[in-house]
């Protein structure tokens, strides 16, 4: 089990040293008012200018110690915070990348992103602040009170009565504040979603002249945010005035009580003055508590969210029992045996079987939601199938080392991902691929002409998600990426939908010509994209309703024929 304490314990020694130094510095600070009281009550009456000056110098020395101790300790604390956060963040990122697809689905991508960004930031802040103030504040509080006891016990009791009251106020208001701020955050989320939503749909809104409607919708969301924020603000803003009043009243009480004590000869005036200084110190400490409180509650909630990801069990591990080498002639082949799979309840694939030999091609066609994409997810072992098995090169996918399995593939996924990097980096995609091979792949994917027409050619930059390229250009770059690794198996999931028929046809011809040994799985909505395949798998609501070549399916498979008719009807007859 990983935990924040575990990460911190690596830096035990440094933290201990830092905290000790911090404690020394803080204690030195506490002695200042005490020395002052001594000067006023004991040294001043002797009338010795020299000893007064000497005590002044001593005070100065303590002030210097306090300064140095705090600076050194703060810097050590920052280093611990830096190193711990760095490790946590790296671990979290790599844990995130190695989560199984099911785990990712469960946590959701936006939540993973916020764990990596704002949660690690909160933890960083908390670690730093805990070390800087976590020891200082208790010492100031406890030490301050303790010292006042040694100066004048009865007056100290007055002080002691005030401190718990303050602590209660701080904790009460802060905890109330946390719920209010959570409410506020929720309201803000709604607002953000509205803005994002309307931004995406601006054309529709304008086309339907619904701007007024949207404006009104926003106005009520806006009011809600403002209400929540006002409530939270009004509640939180009571803390400072209230604490000031309580402390100042306490100080007034000390003076009154002090007057009695002095008149009875039990206390001295210098001590009362020292008390007023302690009050200031304690006031600052209490104010710091409220800051620590907010920080720690945020930070510990965040560290919980982080550790939840770090402690996810490893799924999809290699099953050594299944790691048997397949027969030689099965190299490059794929076999689905009665595969059944469901994401969550209803099966997405039911009892699907097919076999592909090296160099053969499979077309997959079917309605939206018929399980086409699921097929790819299972083949790449993003998920494990519930029943049946999947063999690649004659070996169960569960028997592979994850990396070894996926190395065999070149894949373009549905809505695939391009990085904010150069065209070259996107095609190479972190693999060791020669520039020549990269360019060859771009040519074969019909991407070379538009890339070379760019000012910087292959070094041209893509913006985030490739937004500066058209849908068709993006798909061609993605196909180039898949081809660049000379894969044993090529999987194209709906990856030519943005290409026009002509480019699509040219691409298919290139594939046939240049990759005779590559096993190809092509998923598409268009029948023309899959017709050329050696075998076509027709899926309907997760079931295989046809598996044969185009000719046979036309005679035997209703679903296929209907799809064909819907798309081929236009030409009446096939004339090419």
């Amino acid at each position, binding site marked *: 089990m990983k935990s924040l304490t575990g990460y911190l314990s690596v830096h035990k020694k440094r933290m201990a040293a830092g905290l000790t130094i911090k404690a020394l510095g803080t204690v030195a600070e506490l002695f200042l008012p005490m020395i002052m009281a001594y000067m006023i009550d004991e040294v001043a009456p002797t009338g010795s200018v020299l000893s007064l000056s000497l005590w*002044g110098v001593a005070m100065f020395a303590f002030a210097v110690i306090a300064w140095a101790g705090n600076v050194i300790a703060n810097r050590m604390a920052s280093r611990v915070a830096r190193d711990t956060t760095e490790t946590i963040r790296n671990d979290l990122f790599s844990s995130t*990348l190695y989560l199984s697809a099911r785990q990712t689905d469960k946590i959701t991508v936006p939540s993973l992103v916020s764990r990596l960004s704002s949660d690690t930031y909160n933890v960083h802040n908390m670690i730093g602040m805990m070390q800087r103030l976590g020891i200082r504040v208790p010492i100031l509080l406890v030490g301050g009170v303790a010292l006042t006891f040694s100066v004048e016990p009865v007056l100290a009791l007055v002080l002691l009565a005030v401190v718990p009251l303050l602590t209660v106020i701080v904790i009460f208001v802060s905890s109330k504040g946390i719920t209010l701020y959570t409410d506020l955050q929720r309201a803000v989320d709604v607002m953000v979603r509205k803005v994002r939503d309307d931004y995406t749909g601006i054309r529709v809104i304008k086309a339907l*002249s619904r701007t007024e409607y949207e404006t009104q919708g926003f106005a009520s969301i806006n009011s809600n945010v403002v209400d929540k924020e006002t409530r939270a603000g009004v509640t939180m803003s009571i803390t400072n005035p209230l604490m000031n009043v309580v402390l100042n009243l306490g100080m007034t009480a000390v003076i009154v009580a002090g007057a009695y004590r002095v008149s009875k000869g039990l206390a001295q005036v210098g001590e009362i003055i020292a008390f007023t200084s302690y009050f200031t110190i304690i006031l600052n400490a209490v104010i710091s508590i409220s800051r620590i409180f907010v920080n720690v509650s945020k930070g510990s909630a965040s560290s919980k969210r982080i550790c939840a990801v770090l402690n996810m069990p490893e799924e999809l591990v290699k099953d050594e029992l299944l790691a048997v080498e397949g027969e030689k002639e099965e190299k490059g082949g794929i076999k689905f045996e009665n595969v059944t799979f469901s994401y969550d309840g209803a099966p997405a694939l039911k009892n699907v079987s097919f076999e592909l030999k090296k160099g053969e091609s499979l077309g997959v066609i079917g309605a939206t939601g018929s399980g086409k994409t699921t097929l790819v997810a299972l083949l790449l072992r993003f998920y494990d199938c519930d029943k049946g098995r999947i063999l690649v090169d004659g070996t169960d996918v569960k028997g592979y080392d994850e990396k070894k399995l996926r190395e065999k593939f070149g*894949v373009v996924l549905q809505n695939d991902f391009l990085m904010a990097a150069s065209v070259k980096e996107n095609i190479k995609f972190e693999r060791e691929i020669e520039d020549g091979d990269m360019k060859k792949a771009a040519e074969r994917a019909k991407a070379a002409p538009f890339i070379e027409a760019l000012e910087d050619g292959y070094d041209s930059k893509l913006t985030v998600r490739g937004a500066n390229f058209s849908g068709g250009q993006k798909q061609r770059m993605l196909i180039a990426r898949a081809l660049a690794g000379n894969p044993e198996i090529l999987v194209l999931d709906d990856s030519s939908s943005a290409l026009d028929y002509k480019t699509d046809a040219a691409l298919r011809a290139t594939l046939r010509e240049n990759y005779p040994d590559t096993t190809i799985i092509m998923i598409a909505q268009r029948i023309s994209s899959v017709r050329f395949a050696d075998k076509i798998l027709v899926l309907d609501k997760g079931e295989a309703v046809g598996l044969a070549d185009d000719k046979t399916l036309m005679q035997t498979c209703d679903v296929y024929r209907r799809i064909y008719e*819907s798309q081929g009807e236009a030409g009446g007859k096939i004339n090419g």
Partner: protein
Amino acid sequence: MAEENKVRKSRRAVVARLAKYFMRYKFTVILAFFLMLGSNLFALLGPMLTGKAINAIDLETGVDFQAVFFYCALMAIFYVVSGVLSYILSVVMIKLSQKIVKSMRKDLFDKIIALPVGYLDKMQAGDLINRISYDIDTVNSSLSNDILQAATGIVTVIGALIGMLAISPALFGVFAITIPLSILITVQRSRQVRPLFRKRSGKLAELNGYSEEMISGIKTIKAYGVEESMISHFADKNKTAVDAYYNADYYASLIGPSVNFVNNFGTVLISTAGCLMYLFNMIMLGDISSFLLYARKFSGPINEYANIMSEIQSALAAAERVFRLLDELPEGAGDTAETELENPKGDVSFRHVRFGYNPEKVIIHDLSFEAKAGQTVAIVGPTGAGKTTLVNLLMRFYDPQDGVITLDGRDIKEYTRKSLRAAFSMVLQDTWLFEGTIRENIAYGKDGATDEEIREAARQANIADFIEALPEGYDTPVTDGGVNLSKGQKQLMTIARAMLSPAHLLILDEATSNVDTRTELLIRGAMDRLMQGKTCFVIAHRLSTIKNADLILVVKDGDIVERGKHKELLEKGGFYSEIYNAQFE
């Protein structure tokens, strides 16, 4: 230097504009000012009274209880009054700032939604969201906190100064040694630390951007097995980010203790000098005490000064970003059109239209064609040839640089945008559903649509069975832009929306691209009915949808290379027949 001047000038303009928002609530502002003054003055009297009370204790003749009680009672009253006033002040300020924030946010949203589509196309959603949430928040906290703190600080510093001078000018002379020290630390600190903090948030933003990007591509990264190299890139960026954080911390961590040190140093000086003066009967003990309290009060705001200033700076920068967006011209700012388009016949013509999203990069060179009422115009061509651009021009999301588009014989610029757009219904490739129920989303097409009409439209679009099978039926909420629906289902819903709409012109931009072919067959009849009697503009990859069009425009590189009916074009054996036949190869 000139750059700096410019910044300063624009800052001043921003301040003036913010002040205008304040001036809407003049009386509240005046009230707040007096509350601030009152609460601080009462608080400032405290140390003076403390000193007097202690003086009354430290008498040759013993303790003057009457005086002690009197001063302490006054103190208690003053502190309570000050506390109450300062709480009322906070509440007033929060309400005031929230009012301002509310109207700013409303102005901003109204502006966003009124901006030309072309402007929004160039902007990222994240940028807009940043301005409407984060930037406005920054302005808000600055309005409710920093200004108050700054004002309080000024009053406190002046008050404490007067207090100290009144007690003992000589002792003040000693204390004054620490003032340059405080100022030195403050100035040096902001100069040194501010760029470091800027760098720190910049690096952190970079890292967060990177992780968002990578996690959204997690499946691809896994598919190619390149996790390790992504992890090592991340580690590099992470290192830079934590180092930047540390650097800022390293210098910032000097500040707290240094400020404390100056405070303590002040205490040392005052105590030592005070005792010496006491020795020579130049001062009373109680006065030393009040002097010390004033000294602490005095240094407080000075130490906070840099903090407040940097926060106000960032608030001004945020306000500037908000104002800049508010200053953008809304769509149709220069419109003089007043003609309301009513019951259009639907004759559309393009005459020598020339257009480019970027004026230097023309994508439609010279386009002319005519569509008579009730006709269907299909636009065909390769990806990126400018097909969707025609829709942008028709709906006036963009205006052509040259040439005219007419509807019923008049330039479309002569009609109000609202009435022009109301004349069209459309189904786009990128479907859009908003937060709300399925019912609301379909009903969006027509004001006051009845339940019966909604159901009928859904039935025609072949989505009714699916909707009715949902546990909440038509009341099922569409969450987060519709992620719980498949792309195809979303598109069917927008088709239902179009079916409900009474518009006379119809735009179908890849209207069935996400719908599988079997469903497409099922709704074909309904689509035909939808198109009946309307002037239709159809953009499609699937050539089956367009073979019945009255006019097919074949677009290539922004120009119309061929035009005619399906049959004619096939016979001609040109570019159209080439792409048409490609689908059967």
